[in-house]
């Protein structure tokens, strides 16, 4: 009898083990199928869905600031169901921004961001589009008198004031020579920045005897620019105490000249544009500060203001974006973000 029960128990155990093994095999098979199914779905491109379609039009595709703002707006809009399309990016057409506004209107976009100007053609396009019920928000530069709904301004004048304040902070002498590199094709934004610098130095830096020099540089040929920088920074006498770069291109050229010519920099350089290499240059002491508009905030404000208008019908007509100042004190935070 005992033998019989023992045999039964062994048989039951065998059966249980077999069932467990069977279930494991089944789970593995289901797992593989599920895995393949997921992989199959992942193999297709991003399938995020959107409820709004905004078009972003800038003057130049090479504009560091515009690129930066577009990327921020696109990334900010994506999780919120807003697709921001940069119209000029791949079309390779020699259209004006006015044409692109018309094109965006024909596309029946929900909203348009445009780096505008005071030209009549743009104003007309903006007005036509607005009349069709498509709101237009100008960015970086405005179209005064048009029917745009809002203007998101980086505040070039404010940017100039920040430059000026940094000069006052970092100067080691009472009568520093401040050299501002100005491209030969400088626009109104550049002039506003310079004005901001000058006024700040006159008001807040009235205890200093600042010698302000505007050094014109070739905005088209890189090697000339770099040679010029090399000449300025390598000069044994008459070196400026502080050099200010007003755009990202100039800042990067200066940085490359320092590296390429292995220049031991005595002057304090203030640049713009936040990138990993420039942030490292602050850490290494080649640059004392980077002044830039807060592109993240700008992108965010563009999207939010447009969406607010579409939902509520009202919008703040003039939005000024804050500036970002990176110095040795806070450079680590930005490096980590990068």
């Amino acid at each position, binding site marked *: 009898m005992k033998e019989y029960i023992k045999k039964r128990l062994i048989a039951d155990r065998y*059966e249980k083990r077999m069932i467990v093994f069977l279930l494991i095999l089944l789970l*593995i098979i289901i797992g*593989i*199928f599920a895995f393949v199914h997921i992989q199959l779905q992942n193999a297709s491109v991003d399938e995020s869905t959107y409820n*709004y379609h905004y078009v972003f039009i800038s003057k130049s595709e090479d504009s560091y600031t515009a690129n930066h703002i577009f990327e921020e707006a696109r990334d900010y809009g994506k999780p919120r169901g807003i697709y921001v*399309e940069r119209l000029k990016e791949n*079309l390779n057409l020699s259209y004006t921004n006015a044409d692109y506004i018309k094109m965006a209107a024909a*596309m029946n976009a929900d909203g348009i961001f445009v780096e505008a100007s005071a030209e009549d053609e743009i104003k007309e396009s903006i007005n036509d589009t607005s009349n069709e019920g498509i709101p237009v928000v100008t960015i970086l530069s405005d179209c005064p008198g048009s029917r745009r709904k809002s203007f998101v301004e980086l505040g070039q004048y404010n940017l100039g004031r920040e430059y000026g304040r940094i000069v006052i902070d970092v100067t080691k002498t009472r009568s520093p020579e401040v050299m501002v590199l100005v491209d030969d094709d400088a626009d109104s934004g550049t002039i506003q920045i310079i004005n901001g610098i000058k006024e700040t130095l006159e008001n807040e830096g009235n205890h200093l005897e600042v010698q302000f020099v505007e050094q014109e540089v070739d905005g088209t040929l890189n090697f000339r620019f770099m040679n010029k920088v090399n000449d300025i920074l390598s000069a044994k006498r008459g070196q400026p105490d502080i050099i200010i770069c007003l755009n990202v291109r100039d800042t990067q050229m200066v940085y490359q000249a320092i590296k390429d010519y292995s220049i031991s920099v005595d002057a304090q350089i203030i640049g713009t544009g936040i990138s990993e290499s420039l942030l490292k240059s602050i850490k290494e002491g080649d640059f004392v500060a980077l002044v830039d508009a807060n592109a993240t905030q700008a992108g965010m404000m563009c999207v939010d203001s447009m969406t607010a208008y579409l939902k509520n019908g009202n919008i703040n007509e003039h939005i000024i974006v804050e500036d970002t100042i990176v110095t040795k004190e806070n450079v680590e935070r930005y490096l980590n973000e990068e």
Partner: protein
Amino acid sequence: MRNRRTFRDQIVYIFLVTFFLMFIVNLLIFQNMKAIIDNVDSAYDGNRKLMEVRDKLDNLQLEMHEYINTKDENTLNKFYSDEDAYKELISDFKHVSPMTELQIRENSLYNLSDNYILYVNQAVLAKKTRNVEEYQSYQSMANKGYEYLTAYMTDLNNTMFHNNSVSYRNMLNLTKYTEVLYIVILFLTGGLDICILLLLIKRLVDPLRKLADTAIEVGNGNLDVMLVESSSVNEIGIVNSSFNQMVISLKDYIEKFRKSMETESALREQSIRMETAVKDAQLRYLQAQINPHFLFNTLNAGAQLAMMENADKTYKYIHKVADFFRFKIKQNDHTSSIGEELKIVDDYIYIINVRYSGEIIYNKNVDESLLNVSIPGMILQPIVENCIKHGFPEVEWEKRIDVSVTEEDDNIVISVSDNGLGIPESVIRDIMNNEKSGNIDSDKDGGIGIDNVIMRLKNFYNSEDVIEITSVGPNMGTEVALFIPKEIKEKENVQDIDS
């Protein structure tokens, strides 16, 4: 839950389970592979569709210009036909929110097309109505719309191509390693199938195995086995119930058989007991008929009568006869001493000599110290009797019998010799080999045969070398020598001392 499926059904069930498992897995693999292939195939569908739209758009643009330039009715008809075809094609690009990035762009394309179609139609209509200013204006707007549309279409096409290329590459990669995974799945499913097969077959075979085990137990004679439980009512269940019924019947039958055997045995015992009682009664009856006491009393009475009549010889004779028979009755199959054996030989010779007028000369040469040695009873008298019976008939010369009891080495030798006719060698061999010999067998006349003597001696001393018969030749007499091991004698002496 009782299994009601028949054996055949269960086998079919096992086949179907494994078959369907493999079938389902293969179906899933097939569907997945088909989905992958479809995906790969359709990777560039969007581009293809876009190119078709582009072709139609170009036709439309061309036809618009042609009509405006020529105002040809056929061109107009063709234009309307192509416009319908274009609208149908472009309708696939219309989507509603929420949309994916691609759908938004396709929708934008659709809206651009819509805008373009509007201007084209206006231009054609203006041309038809010969409104030159208006058609030129709409034509210009249509041209602009065409530019927007083609530029956007090219961009969309590039984006689609890029996305589709990524998708296609992913699909191809996925196809490569899903092939490996599906091979793994097939192997795993094979394993799964085998497991299920084993499990189901085990369930099918287990009752049979249990039945076989129990049958072996029953075959080994253990009828107290646990009866086979059956969870099924199929053929196996029937066999199990039948087997259980058989075991129960077998147990009943054996119980009945045992009882019957016991009864029969009791009856047989009773019968034997009765038979024994009858035989015993018969024996007692016979014994009562030949009561030796009666015989001895009778002989004693005869002896007394002879004494009263002063017939001393008769008295002695009768007395000797009485002694002889008393001893013979008493000692047969018992032990006696050599002295007692010699005494009965003396008595026997006396009786024989009375019968044969003292013809037989009897001599004894006995070592007195050996008279108390125990030997099997009634062994000497039969030998002497054989001498007289077989050695002396028709002998004309003096008949002599010599008996000696001596010690030789480890034995006591009792020798009985005569000078009679002697025994042929072949007869001696027969006697020694315990084969019947007509001449020597003396049982038939109420005496004890030589073969009986030899057998008893051999058994008593557990030895073959206890007797020797010697006859030199015809008329040269015979000697029978008995060899009694001395060990026995010594033991007996010790016992005597102890007692």
